């Protein structure tokens, strides 16, 4: 049973989606930064996908050089502020903090990072230098974390950058796809504004690149192209009744929730399908939207879920119930969802078997599919010589992020199949360096 009341106002919504990692105040930052040991060859740096010099920026916060701390962070990660808030720090930097070995709480690195960057963003002071123009032009497809990071790095190297974005806001899933209790839209967007104001890359909104002709034009007009498209809409389950009213993809559900907030309609009984972090987010969000019953259903065992343990715990603490070893075999209802028909599963010789004779129905008014996003394979086929792996992920050189078509570079979810903002930010930056190397051969 959910403990959350249905939010009917913006204030209710904010209460139900209280920020998990609120901004530190200066006193908190002062005491927390004092605890850092300044480890040699610090494990937190190694655990950070962007290798931020964490002990350095914490020392800088301690000595009240907050702007210097922000520079240290942005120097390694252009989405430093968003990452400080949304990174799964418990399994990255904070998970590597040596204090864990003696049961001392690890340094709250994410929140300190957010403190430094947020404080500096609010000063609106110029802290970055645009590189001297080299006359070369780069097109970026997708203004998500990978594209933005790539654009920022390229601007510091003197390239002209134009980003083509299908939607009307920048930062991709960071603004459309992250649970609202992890980060607010304002927080995401103000970092992009801060970066864009200083670095001056152009973003063309509602400008999807979809056709061969558009690609040809990009190839003619630009010296290199970075693909940061991420993934597509939620994929199909290929089961009966999936087209019924009330069946929605998790990505689409979260996007709606982030834009409509308390006005999003969530009925009283919801089933969420999936076992990844997005499923946990969607289930937690359903409960926080006041659904009386939210059931998380995963086809395999609890141990096999891809979601982080803390994400599952968070969903459970929001009042979500879970069902394991069940696979949806049909959506029932007359035109509208009335339930999900599940078959039980079991592991036989290391393979998951569906027990077709063991079937039951869970009544609900809404089904959220968090079973993965569709790949952009058909788009990639429009580009000559672009190689993909068996899971439709773009193949790139792991240092330069150059694809099999030398003019194209790629990073983020399009390459890794769906990971964290921090991974995309790293890819984008590395790809920019790869482009620079390629164009200066």
């Amino acid at each position, binding site marked *: 049973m959910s403990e959350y009341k249905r939010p009917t106002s913006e204030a209710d919504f904010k209460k139900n989606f209280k920020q998990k990692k609120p901004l530190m105040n200066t006193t908190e930052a002062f005491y927390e930064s004092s605890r850092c040991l300044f*480890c040699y060859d610090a*494990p937190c740096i190694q655990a950070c996908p962007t290798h931020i010099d964490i002990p350095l920026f914490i020392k800088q916060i301690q000595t009240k050089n907050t702007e210097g701390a922000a520079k240290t962070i942005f120097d390694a990660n252009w989405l430093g502020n968003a990452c400080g808030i949304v990174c799964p720090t418990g399994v990255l930097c904070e998970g590597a903090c*040596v204090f864990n070995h003696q049961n001392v709480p690890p340094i709250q690195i994410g929140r300190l990072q957010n403190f430094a960057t947020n404080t500096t963003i609010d000063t609106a002071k110029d802290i970055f230098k645009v590189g001297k123009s080299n006359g070369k032009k780069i097109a970026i497809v997708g203004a998500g974390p990978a594209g933005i990071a790539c654009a920022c790095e390229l601007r510091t190297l003197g390239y002209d950058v134009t980003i083509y974005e299908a939607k009307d806001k920048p930062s991709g899933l960071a603004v459309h796809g992250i649970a609202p209790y992890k980060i607010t839209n304002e927080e995401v967007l103000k970092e992009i504004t801060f970066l864009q104001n200083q670095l001056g890359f152009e973003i063309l909104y509602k400008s999807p690149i979809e056709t061969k002709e558009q690609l040809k034009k990009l190839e003619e007009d630009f010296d290199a192209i970075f693909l940061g498209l991420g993934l597509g809409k939620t994929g199909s389950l290929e089961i009966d009744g999936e087209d019924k009213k009330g069946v929605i993809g998790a990505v689409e559900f979260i996007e709606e929730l982030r834009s409509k907030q308390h006005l999003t309609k969530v009925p009283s009984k919801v089933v969420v399908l999936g076992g990844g972090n997005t499923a946990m987010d969607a289930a937690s969000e359903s409960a926080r939207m006041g659904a009386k019953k939210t059931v998380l259903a995963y086809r395999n065992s609890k141990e096999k879920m891809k979601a982080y343990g803390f994400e599952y715990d968070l969903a459970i603490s929001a009042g979500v119930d879970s069902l394991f070893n069940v696979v949806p075999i049909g959506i029932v209802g007359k035109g509208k969802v009335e339930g999900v028909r599940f078959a039980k599963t079991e592991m036989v010789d290391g393979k998951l078997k569906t027990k077709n004779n063991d079937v039951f129905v869970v009544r609900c008014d809404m089904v959220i599919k968090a079973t993965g996003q569709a790949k952009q394979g058909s788009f990639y086929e429009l580009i000559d010589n672009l190689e993909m792996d068996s899971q439709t992920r773009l193949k790139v050189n792991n240092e330069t992020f150059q694809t099999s078509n030398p003019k194209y570079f790629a990073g983020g979810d399009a390459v890794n199949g769906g990971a964290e903002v921090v991974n995309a930010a790293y890819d984008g930056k590395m790809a920019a360096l790869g482009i620079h190397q390629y164009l200066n051969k």
Partner: protein
Amino acid sequence: MADLSINFAGIKAPNPFWLASAPPTNSGYQIMKAFEAGWGGAVWKTLGVPVINVSSRYGAVNYRDTRMMGFNNIELITDRPLADNLREIEEVKKYFPDHAVIASLMVESRAEWEQIIKDVQNAGADGIELNFGCPHGMCERGMGSAVGQEPEVLKTIVEWVKAAANIPVITKLSPNISHIVDPGLAAYQGGTDAISLINTIKSIVGIDLDSYAPYPVVDGKGTNGGYCGPAVKPIAMHMLKDLAQHPEISKVPICGIGGIETWRDVVEFILLGATSVQVCTAVMHYGFGIVREMEAGLRQFMDDKGYNTIYDFTGKALPNITEWKHLNLEHKVVAEINPNTCVGCDLCYIACDDGAHQAIALPTDLTNRVPSIIEENCVGCNLCSLVCPIENCITMVKKDDGTKHSTWAERTDADQVPTTFDDDRAGGKGHFVPKPSDALK
């Protein structure tokens, strides 16, 4: 149960915890409150000639999140009317006849000394403390540290005071001198009944990085203040030791002052020969209530060790404090790291490699971060155990069998002082010192 009462040069008090002459002893109100809280004595804020104080008056040295590790002030002696102070001394003694009330005095001419001594004796003070230490303001007028730095002048004034006083006289020494024995001996020869030390140390605690003025800032300017607080304790203890080991000076009791805050500090000062202590900064930081930790700890220590009075252990550390030339050159300790508690911060490694003797190696496999001691290079310097943030993780283990003993003095006497660099006991022998170019690898 331990008896904490003392008889200090004829001044009786229920315990050795006295308040130093300073802002906490500015009024009868404060002193009565302190006695209620458990303090055994108080040295009244120095009485003397009329003064005018400035605003502001205090500055601090903070270390990371530790406030007031060091503290300084540019406040002068009392600015309250002498008559008020005398009346309040009388009142305090009425309420607390068994507690020690000592009048700190600072005037200039012999006639002034004689008059003020008469005044405080009439008010019922149990003793007099001569303020020869104040390092700002008063010294410019020929008083305070101006006297403390001139042993001959100090001796003369002590003689004047002794001739006039019929209550015990304590001479408080300034540490702003290269050799503390000189004023100590002058005070002894002048006939003082006791010595107290140290007064504050001339200092600049910090510079404001916007106004370029030292703290505390008085209308854009500052001056050297008197430094005190936990940071000065080592200097105070060293000076106390010099007096307590002196054959003549040690005939009079010594009151220890300088950075005392906890029972451990009190015990250390007593072990170095003090038979009472004075406290100021700890009270200015935490209030009079801090004494309850000192008293409880001192009692616990005395009970654990089986001491009945503080005189049972006064000066017990003095025989162990010797000159370097008498230290045993055959003694050898080596660091040992407990791999079970080591958290892998590797601060010991970098401290030793960059700051000491290159005697710690990082692990060669990547499965852990526990470093190891290179025993042939370890000189037993302690540095690693000092930087280690984990309780009892690095210990210094004795390696010699304790049968051999030789000191520099003995070797000098035996004409065995080394003339080459290959002596068996030489610190560098057998050590591997990396080549300078190894630093660039």
